[in-house]
């Protein structure tokens, strides 16, 4: 399998998980929330600073259908995460390449 094909499949699988499988995710509190409630520190949680944001709690504001709203939020999240991480590794790689690769251990020296 070529790397391009592998990447395409992995990306589509991620999109399907975030965009479709997410409809079926459990809405029960997660382990930490549950422990916080049962042991008694749940009430110390504060309202999130961006709780009113357009994608808060994985719901796209203004989309009526719950499934569509969650799915859209998931797809946007996948795209933003991919762009950020992709951009980061490309920048890191370009910077890494500017130091001679055939001479290992040169990069610490230039930092002084």
């Amino acid at each position, binding site marked *: *399998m*070529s*790397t391009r094909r*592998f*990447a395409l499949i*992995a*990306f589509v*699988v*991620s*999109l399907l*998980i*975030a965009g479709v*499988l*997410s409809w*079926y*995710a*459990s*809405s*029960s*509190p*997660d*382990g*930490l929330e*549950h*422990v*916080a409630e049962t*042991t*008694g*520190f749940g*009430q*110390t*949680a*504060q*309202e*999130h*600073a*961006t*709780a009113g*944001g357009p*994608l*808060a*709690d*994985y719901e796209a504001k203004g989309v009526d259908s719950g499934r569509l709203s969650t799915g859209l*939020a*998931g797809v*946007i*999240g*996948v795209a*933003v*995460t*991919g762009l*950020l*991480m992709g951009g*980061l*590794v*490309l920048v*890191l*790689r370009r910077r*890494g390449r500017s130091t001679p690769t055939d001479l290992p251990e040169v*990069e610490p020296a230039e930092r002084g």
Partner: protein
Amino acid sequence: MHVPDGFLDVPTSIATAVVATAGVAAALRGARRDLDERTTPIAGLVAVFVFAGQMINFPVGAGTSGHLLGGALAAVLAGPWLATLALSVVLIVQAFLFADGGITALGSNVLLMGLVGVWVGWFAFRAARAVLPRKASSVPLAAAFGAFVSVPAAAAAFVGLFAIGGQADIPIGSVLTAMLSWHAIIGIGEALITSLVVGSVVAVRPDLVAGARDLLAERTLEIRQQVRA
């Protein structure tokens, strides 16, 4: 496992932010050495897959759910430095876009999932690899072990932070017991998902799996044939 604002006091949150920043800075340096034409696409895909996987809460009983943390998965696929960066990117996106994990708790969440989850997962994976036979089928098994261990480890780390800077006066023993027992169950889900994903990638492109690359030097010819197909 995402810590909201308010669970931990301000000094603790500042301290975790400092530790997280130092960890990410080290990861930026470490990752630069790891990046090549194979790890670059994998790093991006790992971040994307972990984001997607963390959306899927699975029930673990008594009205409680868990979701993939992805630290061990990311470390086995992309190496621990890139995994720390991938988890940090995911946590930043979640905190700022999805109101998942507090903004003042971002340092705590990077520390718990991007550092503890990733590195405990990675070293447990390496330890399991060291005792298992040197063959490709050991990789998903070792990844499962790393994943299983990483979840209660992150939970225990949270309890440590809570003991230092928790905003409620609760006996720490009961928090520790509850956190460890729930996250041991969640760890089973983490192990299942991780071994399934790592096993799938090892089956089609073992050369893309950072935690399997040392096995490939011994079977270069076989790989070439697969790549061409």
